């Protein structure tokens, strides 16, 4: 990979580009829609409390809920598989496709399938894999990765997409979104109807009924679970609630937080394969429950992040995400929640710097529909990175020195005097625009107000003190 290995490296390549601007305006739009949709809800805070309680309850009893879910799904004729890691999950999916002689595979959006890099694996086996969510389809055609979990090609313009369709689908160039949509519909309709198997994610499973729930706006999630003979669902092991009533609360919260909708267009509840009397539906339903690092997260300090319902609100609210865009995170899971999930799933190496890609302003926690304490966990991960000695030497030494100064009033007073004097040398007017040495990075994207000549304490002593 030629991609820079640090968040800062990737972000610097993106800041100020069209991509970052498009992500910013898109995220703001989602944020407005969310705000409008929550305003009309008198019981919003109550709904958030419920959603949080439901998710935390599920995490506390996860093994029991998963066992119950599996029993119920099997009783309904479905199959449940258990994948320890990504390789395991890929193998299970490939085996099912092989046994059912499935060559043509259609997919609806699944973060887990991207996490385990399923497409590349299946394509290497000679299978024909098509993403069917419009945004994901465009990203797949372009050989690109999604830049936002709710709107995958937020970073592309209509002209980009027009050229891509002309080039890859052999249609005349158009940049009219309505026409582009029509072209994609006609192309994908054929692909859906001819597919042998459909692969989806799972928004939430319901333990009591043994159901999986899939939410889409386009209808592709329904088509790929209805037209083909085989349906395979990839499920992160934490995506589960106890009862159907709990799922109802989570689904309402999800739609409002993600796109400001009262409910998504299609909420699809699947409980096993087609039964004898059913006129249509898949003959086989397989659910692959994926761990891939989740039990490690569950065992530790950041377990709460597993309560996340993947609505994307924290991305939209985050000033760092809006400035740099999703690709800067270098991971399938971007933004504030991604900065906790990614090092949790894949380890601190090389992901230790993601928790630092935050201003800790708290906007993420404020919008989170399940009130996840994201800033607190980002700090915990920063602490962990520091205690593992991952920070650059100058930073570690600088912070240590800063700490020594701040705990001693006389050292602090001396340091302030020096800072005031030195700042006179490097400031322009009232602002410090460039700091020397390793501190330069801090001023590369921000200005620092010049410290006053006289501190407040000195002024107080001189004018008001007794």
């Amino acid at each position, binding site marked *: 990979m030629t991609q820079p290995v640090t968040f800062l490296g990737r972000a610097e390549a993106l800041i100020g580009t069209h991509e970052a601007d498009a992500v910013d305006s898109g995220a703001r739009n989602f944020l407005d829609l969310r705000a409008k949709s929550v305003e009309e809800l008198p019981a919003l805070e109550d709904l958030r409390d419920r959603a949080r*309680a439901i998710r935390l309850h599920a995490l506390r009893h996860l093994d029991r809920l998963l066992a119950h879910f599996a029993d119920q799904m099997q009783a309904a004729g479905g199959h449940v598989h258990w994948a320890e890691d990504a390789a395991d999950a890929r193998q299970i999916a490939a085996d099912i496709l092989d046994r059912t002689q499935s060559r043509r595979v259609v997919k609806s959006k699944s973060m887990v399938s991207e996490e385990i890099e399923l497409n590349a694996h299946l394509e290497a086996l000679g299978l024909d894999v098509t993403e069917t969510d419009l*945004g994901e389809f465009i990203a797949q055609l372009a050989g690109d990765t999604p830049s936002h979990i709710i709107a995958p090609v937020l970073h592309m313009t209509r002209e980009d997409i027009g050229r891509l369709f002309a080039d890859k689908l052999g249609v005349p160039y158009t940049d009219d979104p309505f026409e582009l949509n029509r072209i994609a519909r006609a192309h994908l309709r054929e692909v*859906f109807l001819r597919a042998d198997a459909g692969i989806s994610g799972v928004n939430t499973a319901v333990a009591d009924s043994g159901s999986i729930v899939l939410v889409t706006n386009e209808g592709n999630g329904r088509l790929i679970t209805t*037209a083909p003979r085989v349906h395979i669902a990839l499920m992160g092991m934490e995506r589960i609630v106890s009862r159907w009533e709990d799922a109802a609360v989570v689904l309402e919260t999800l739609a409002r937080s993600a796109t400001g909708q*009262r409910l998504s267009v299609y909420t699809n509840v699947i*409980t096993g394969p087609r039964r004898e*009397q059913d006129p249509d539906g898949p003959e086989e339903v397989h659910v692959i429950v994926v761990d891939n690092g989740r039990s490690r997260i569950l065992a530790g300090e950041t377990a709460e992040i597993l309560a996340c319902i993947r609505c994307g609100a924290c991305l939209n609210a985050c000033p760092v995400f809006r400035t740099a865009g999703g690709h800067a995170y270098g991971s399938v899971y971007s933004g504030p929640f991604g900065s906790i999930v990614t090092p949790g799933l894949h380890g601190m190496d090389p992901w230790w710097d993601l928790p630092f890609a935050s201003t800790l302003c708290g906007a993420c926690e404020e919008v989170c529909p399940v009130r996840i304490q994201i800033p607190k966990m980002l700090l915990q991960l920063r602490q962990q990175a520091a205690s593992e000695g991952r920070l650059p030497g100058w930073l570690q030494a600088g912070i240590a020195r800063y700490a020594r100064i701040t705990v001693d009033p006389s050292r602090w007073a001396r340091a302030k005097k020096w800072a005031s004097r030195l700042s006179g040398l490097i400031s322009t007017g009232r602002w410090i625009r460039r700091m020397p040495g390793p501190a330069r990075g801090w001023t590369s994207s921000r200005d620092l107000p010049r410290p006053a000549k006289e501190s407040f304490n000195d002024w107080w002593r001189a004018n008001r003190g007794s």
Partner: protein
Amino acid sequence: MDRDSFLTRVGRASLTSQLPDSVSLSVDLPELPPADLLVLFRSRSQTVSAVVHGPVTRHGVPRAVSGIATGHDASSFMAWDDLPAPGVPSALQAVGMDRVDHVVPSERRIEHNLGYRDVGVGVTGAEAALAESGSVVLAHGEGRPRMASLVPDVHIALVELDRLERTLAHWARKNPTLVTETTNLVLITGPSRTGDIEQQLNLGVHGPRHVHIVMIK
């Protein structure tokens, strides 16, 4: 990995898990200001671009449905076998539309699927309608193809007035077991939509472009 080792590992992780405490699960439904359900349903459907018709009497349904279908120039249709009002399929055939077979054979499945390419209209009967979100609930099963609300350009859902509920949570409370009784339950809130290209709203990306809901007295 086998089920037992997987679940044992999850159980062991839970033991050291540092999950925060949370308020206990509240069992009451959310408090909402009183509203006329039909008025609310109509206005909420409108915001998601679905059109609500009626209420019409049970024997007025076939005419209402064929009126909508001819307005969209459809030449073929799919219909559930047990619609809440009789006479709809014959009314559509009477205006010259062909009925598409909806029972998928276990052999030659793809050939059958290709017959769905150009279906004009699908008619279904809703289990419930949700006023707060403008949604209809479809419970699939015998004689009730999933494809009828999915492949046609126009979806017409028939709903009896007394099946209106306030929210999904209210309905879920009244019907805790329906999800286990049917293999596939779907909530539909307006026509298929996407905003994936420059966040411009586009209807009918994969599913129906038009959703009509006919209320029955």
